[in-house]
């Protein structure tokens, strides 16, 4: 394909609670970090694509483009989307169409400013009828787990293994986050802690199965292929990017045990990138819950349906930081995932790109994954808006032609 969009720099803030910082301070920090990395000045930017899921609700802040304009002293076109991947997708289309050559993609969220009402907001936005019926943001994940267990008839010893595999997802993500200075939780947890939290909650999923609420921002600079080559030695290309949608109301969907939108987005992104899932070595999935990480690996085609829990269970017996699936090593959420790195909705996808970018460039430090005798060549990220209502898949890597 002609003119692959290329990422030339990434930046982010620490995720967590930023009590003393206004939202704009966070995006400023992320953008400056990216700008320093590749020596792109604000005046070079031709457009900005920014995402925030619900700043207008959490911070009563509309027209986010306005403060971004003030911040950069730019009057270029700026658009706001709800997720980082949506901003990236739109930016990629603009670059490919030849409209712009250098754009900023950013994401931001300030959830702890409204910590007391955030679950009501999240649920009402995610699935209003479920909210009216009493649903919580956690409930749909638990129902999906039930649907999965029932669909694949998992019982007895296998059910225990599935539950332990889910706990391992969280344990692995927390372990990865200890090597990530930006992560919200930089401490290890144990399988027992995860299981005890479930027991304490009297539920199938507990505190350690869910991503937290977070503040944070992330940014990247996206350019055309020609500009990228002048700016950096080895840019990371967006080889494929696609999105798909599903019903707002989870209960009305055809299959409750998977995310159809993720499957479709992956199919289309792979086609665009001309890659097979076997080419992808580092994966970032949207683990709003441990169930989501598990199901997503099947939705993305890394594993046969109904079987991934076995692979995870086996892989984690030796506390390795990768999953061994069909004889392949799959590195998933090396930054700690949403669970431990944090989940500031609008910025989350930016952190996922940040991680894949660092891994592909061999800049991930302690977290660096080595495949064969070097850093991985390609990776992908999956991001959701809502509970699987929108899915975005972006495939990043070296240009193959």
């Amino acid at each position: 394909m002609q003119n692959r969009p290329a990422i030339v720099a990434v930046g982010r803030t620490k995720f967590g609670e930023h009590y003393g910082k206004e939202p704009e301070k966070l995006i400023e920090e992320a953008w400056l970090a990216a700008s320093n990395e590749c020596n792109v000045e604000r005046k070079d930017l031709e457009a900005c694509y920014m995402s925030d899921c619900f700043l207008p609700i959490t911070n009563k802040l509309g027209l986010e483009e306005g403060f971004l304009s003030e911040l950069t002293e730019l009057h270029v076109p700026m658009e706001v989307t709800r997720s980082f991947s949506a901003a990236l997708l739109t930016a990629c289309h603009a670059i490919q169409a030849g409209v712009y050559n250098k754009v900023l993609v950013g994401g931001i969220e300030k959830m702890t400013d409204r910590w007391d009402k955030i679950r009501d907001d999240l649920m009402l936005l995610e699935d209003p009828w479920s909210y009216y019926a009493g649903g919580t943001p956690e409930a749909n994940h638990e129902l999906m787990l039930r649907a999965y267990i029932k669909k694949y008839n998992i019982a007895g010893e296998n059910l225990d293994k599935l539950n332990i595999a889910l706990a391992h997802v969280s344990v692995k993500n927390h372990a990865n986050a200890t090597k990530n200075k930006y992560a919200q939780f930089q401490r290890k947890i144990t399988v027992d802690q995860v299981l005890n939290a479930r027991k304490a909650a009297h539920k199938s999923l507990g505190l350690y199965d869910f991503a937290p609420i977070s503040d944070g921002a992330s940014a990247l600079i996206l350019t055309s292929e020609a500009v990228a080559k002048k700016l950096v030695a080895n840019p990371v290309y967006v080889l494929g990017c696609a999105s798909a949608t599903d019903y707002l109301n989870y209960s009305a969907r055809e299959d409750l045990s998977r995310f159809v939108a993720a499957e479709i987005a992956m199919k289309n992104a792979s086609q665009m990138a001309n890659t097979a899932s076997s080419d992808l070595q580092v994966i970032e999935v949207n683990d709003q819950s441990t169930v989501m990480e598990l199901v997503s690996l099947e939705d993305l085609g890394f594993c046969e349906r109904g079987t991934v829990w076995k692979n995870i269970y086996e892989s984690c017996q030796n506390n390795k930081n990768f999953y061994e699936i069909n004889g392949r090593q799959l590195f998933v959420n090396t930054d700690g995932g949403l669970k431990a790195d944090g989940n500031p909705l609008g910025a989350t996808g930016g952190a996922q790109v940040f991680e894949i970018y660092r891994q592909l460039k061999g800049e991930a430090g302690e977290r660096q994954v080595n495949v064969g005798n070097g850093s991985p060549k390609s990776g992908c990220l999956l991001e959701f808006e809502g509970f699987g209502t929108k899915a975005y898949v972006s495939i990043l890597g070296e240009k193959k032609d």
Partner: protein
Amino acid sequence: MSSEPIERRVSYLGDRLRASRCQSCGKEYFEVRDYCSNCGRKSFGKMDDIDLFYDKGKLELCTFINEPTNKFMKLSSFVYGIISFHDGKIRVPGRLTDQLINDSDDVDFSGLEGREVVPRFRRRYSVGKSDLIPTISLAFTLADEYYPHQEYSVLTPNKEYDIPGVVGYGVYTSRFRIKESGLERAVPFIDEDSATAAVEAGKLALIHSGVDSRLVGKVYVGSESNPYAVKPIASKVAQVLKLGEEDGDIQGVDAVDTEFACKAASSMFKDASSLVSYPRSGIKYAMVIGADNAQAAPKGCLGGELDTFVGYGGAAFIFGKHDVIAEVEGWYSCTSDTPDFWRRDGEPFPMHGGRFTGDPAYFKHVRKATCKLMERFNLKASDLNYFVAHQPNPQFPVRIAKELGFRDEQYLSSLQIKKFGNTYSGCSPVGLAAVLDIAEPEERILVASYGSGAGSDAYLLRTTSQLVDKRKRQKVNVKFQAENPFIEYVDYTTYRRLKLGL
């Protein structure tokens, strides 16, 4: 602050569980749709309106919620899941209601999944004191427990009577009770109020009567615990039960709330009977509902004496001239300005005249109405099969019955105060329903209501053979609810919490 349009739209769909079905492919949607997204443009205008209000569903998947969102905080812990209807053609989210679960309880989901559930009309969640009260029927109870599923099938009327009368009725009380010194009283679940009881009672009356809801031309709801000072319960009842001819989102029915303490509903029996008899009214059936979440100040507070007797529930009666089960032969009403019980606007609990509530209030009026009616029809106590009096406490109805010369077997079966408590506007109607549940054809019933303030309505009813024919249409009768094995007893603190509501 409520958004009126949003509230209207959500409750319009959610109260009745309105749905659509494509005529060509059969796909169903939980919403009102003009076309099928499966069939596209060609299905435009070829969608059938269906609803799940009288259906039973299946709890497919469930989980336990013990940390609800803010608006559900007062429900504290509940089972939430996905309910399917019509073999999975429609799936909706829903919560199980009528369950008191501690957040430390272990809930066995496997025992719940696959069970049949019935939609219940309830309050949706908590809102501010000045907000609109949100309602919904995405609250369910297990069909094999307190409230079984009952089909609503419309009967084609086959006999027209000269004298109008009762064509069907329904009594609704909650699953919860408080038991103190031999007296059981119905306690609403936390998501119930007088409006939800009115709808549920009306639903049961439609099921029992087999009356086509489109032919109900007027609905009266008598209550003294309407959660609104201004906004009728009757409009909610009319919309949810689809009374009168439906035209878009508006019902061709007259609906009005009435208030006269405990006789707010019984007073309208004669109006309903007259209305269906008036040759030019065009109204075939009229529904009268009495429903109350009977208010009382907590024990130990001024007015708290009432808290020994107040209950929760409602009864609905449908009047008409077709397939009558009990003819209304006549009535006598009396009124005086006796201020024995009152509640000022804005006050949560009523006050009462203490020692005067019996004499001259209750006894004088009930005695007057009953005697006058018997005099008019030239009847002695022994000519009647049943006597039903208003039951503010267990003593008053017995005392007046004995005084008027009735034998135990004539009034004992009507005494429901010991099972449900004083359900205020629902009280004498519940007593009448209990008698209709067991009466034989060609029996005569005298029912005398009492409303503080004060007045009494006495009615003379004569049962017909259709009473027995229709009886099998009603599983959820008074006895079923009074002696139900799934009744749950609560202590005084829980009772006050539940009664206060969401």
